[in-house]
């Protein structure tokens, strides 16, 4: 028997208190179930409405804009999403990890570092559409390298992903034991060697986890792409053209007068959620593993 149980055995609790205790425990359990209900309902509805579209050439054909007959699948949207988010990742991760490295290795608790931390937190709260508008004004209207292009969408998304990468990387880098750093420094290794040969490799699993979470967020965002990439139907790999993406395809399809196209929107939504959920689960399982190791 634990100490608590021994003590409870000594002083019997009154009926009313026991009643309150049971009630509250039930309530807390109920709250947890209530919290999970929307997740279940959303996924259930997506499967119900979306999986019907998942047959045949859904993943291997592009949306074609035909008014009659087969409206096509979501191939260009899927590949476009992967490409745009891929570029955004290439931008956000190095910069994000770099800033986190600065905060943990050099800045620490200095005023400058704290100001940077504060503004990174603020960036998380900025509505995603405002990032899209910012890039629209700065890059699209100014005709920098074309008009609506896929890479500008990537830049807008990277602004969104950056604070997530910075925050999660900082947490992970702080967890690297200082003994490791100090041992390396004591052996005469220069600072940069310590960072690249000791700190980063140790933190790598956690950095990967944080990156996966940022990628998952980037894949699901619509608003930053609306005014930067503008969407397309056909498949293109060129980042300097308008490109399709899953959220854009969903947003446009859901407005169509054709019911089969609306169904495609739900199928695409199911594909998007599946992709994002897989990324999230992989990230979290990986982080559990690396923490336990």
């Amino acid at each position, binding site marked *: 028997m634990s100490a608590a149980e021994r003590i409870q055995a000594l002083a019997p609790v009154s009926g009313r208190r026991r009643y309150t205790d049971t009630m509250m425990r039930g309530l807390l359990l109920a709250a947890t179930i209530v919290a999970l209900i929307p997740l279940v309902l959303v996924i259930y509805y997506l499967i119900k409405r979306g*999986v*019907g*579209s*998942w*047959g*045949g*050439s859904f993943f291997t054909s592009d949306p*074609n*804009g*035909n*008014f*009659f*007959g*087969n409206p096509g699948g979501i191939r260009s949207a899927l590949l476009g999403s992967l490409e745009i988010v891929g570029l955004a990742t290439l931008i956000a991760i190095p910069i994000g990890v770099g800033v986190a490295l600065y905060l943990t290795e050099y800045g620490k608790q200095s005023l400058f570092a704290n100001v940077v931390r504060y503004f990174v937190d603020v960036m998380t709260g900025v509505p995603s559409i405002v990032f899209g508008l910012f890039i629209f004004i700065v890059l*699209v*209207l100014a*005709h920098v390298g074309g*008009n*609506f292009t896929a890479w500008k969408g990537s830049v807008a998304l990277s602004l969104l992903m950056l604070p997530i990468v910075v925050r999660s990387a900082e947490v992970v880098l702080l967890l690297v034991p200082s003994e490791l750093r100090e041992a390396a420094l004591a052996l005469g290794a220069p600072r940069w060697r310590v960072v690249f040969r000791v700190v980063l490799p140790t933190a790598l699993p956690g950095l990967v986890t944080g990156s996966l979470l940022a990628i998952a967020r980037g894949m699901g965002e619509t608003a930053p792409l609306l005014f930067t990439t*503008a*969407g*397309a*139907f*056909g498949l293109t790999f060129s980042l300097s*053209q*308008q490109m399709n993406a899953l959220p854009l395809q969903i947003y*446009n399809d*859901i*407005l*169509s*007068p*054709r*019911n089969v196209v*609306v169904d495609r929107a739900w199928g695409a939504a199911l594909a998007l959620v599946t992709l994002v959920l897989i990324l999230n689960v992989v990230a979290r399982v990986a982080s559990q593993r690396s923490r336990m190791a």
Partner: protein
Amino acid sequence: MKSRRISAVALVVTASLAVAACGSSSSSSGGGSPSGASSTSVSPATINGAGSTLAAPIYQQWASSLKSQGLTVNYNPVGSGAGVADLAGATVDFAGSDPALKPADTAKLKGPVIQLPVAFGAITVSYNLPGVKSGLKLDGPTVADIFLGKITSWDNLAIKALNPGISLPSTAITVVHRSDSSGTTSGFTTYLSDVSPTWKAQVGKGKDVKWPVGTGAAKNSGVAAAVKQTPGAVGYVEQAYALENNFTYAAVKNSAGTYVLPSIQNTSAAANGITVPPDLGISTINSPNAGAYPIVSQTFLDAYKDPCKDGGASQSVAKGIKSFLSYAIGAGQQTLGAGGNQLPYAPLPSSLQSKDNAALAGMTCNGATL
């Protein structure tokens, strides 16, 4: 799950066969036969456009047809006003707009613009009244009063007077309107301003107005969904949506005094006999033609007269724009009409087609004719 997959594949195969069969047979109805410069060869390029959602199904279908010939057309249905704004910023090569360009719009554009009417779509007054079939008769002032909130139930005397043979329930009227900026709203409110001085004074016309009553829904599909879900609802919905979803819609009294249903034929009639200004900025709302449905919206394709100079386009892109516009007023017209495999929009009458061709011939690239 497997049987679903098989039936999905079967559906796709059948549909593809059907499209292939339909595509091979030529069909023509309504409008005029393609005349003048409709080139069968198309300049390969990638061009981008944005604008009207009313016309989006048309342009997306045309894009699909042109893709095999090497011309890639990307069209972003962001709304008429946004499309024109994009053209003004030269971030797109062409814009789709339901309302004609006003002086305020042309002032913001970088140079002279070619404005081509390409199709017409009816705006239906769709309602959800269980037991009352399609074809309820309504006249302009009554519609205006409904949307003004003066008529609040379906058994109101004004509606009853127009429909003596129908027993109307006492359901409350729920007005549904667009919450976003829209060319469809522009067309509808232009009509209401024409037929009701009270509406003109109180609300006015425009892509985005302050609605006196009713609930808002985003886009045509939102209004369509809201009307479907609410018994007693009435909303203005584009023809394509109303036909696809089997809505019940009203027969509206036109300027000649006849109650007309929004069929393709009656939509085409609206384009006949209207005055065509020199910049081709027509309006088919409240058309004087006797057989015309009164709430017909025209839709334009707008592009710079010199896309190279004003729109920053390359020679090949400019050629591509001209090819697309040429197709739009030429071979593309055959895809519109009342036929089984035609898009439910009214094509151009031949008089307008020749005017369009003449205007398009004036497109240049840095001064040189294309």
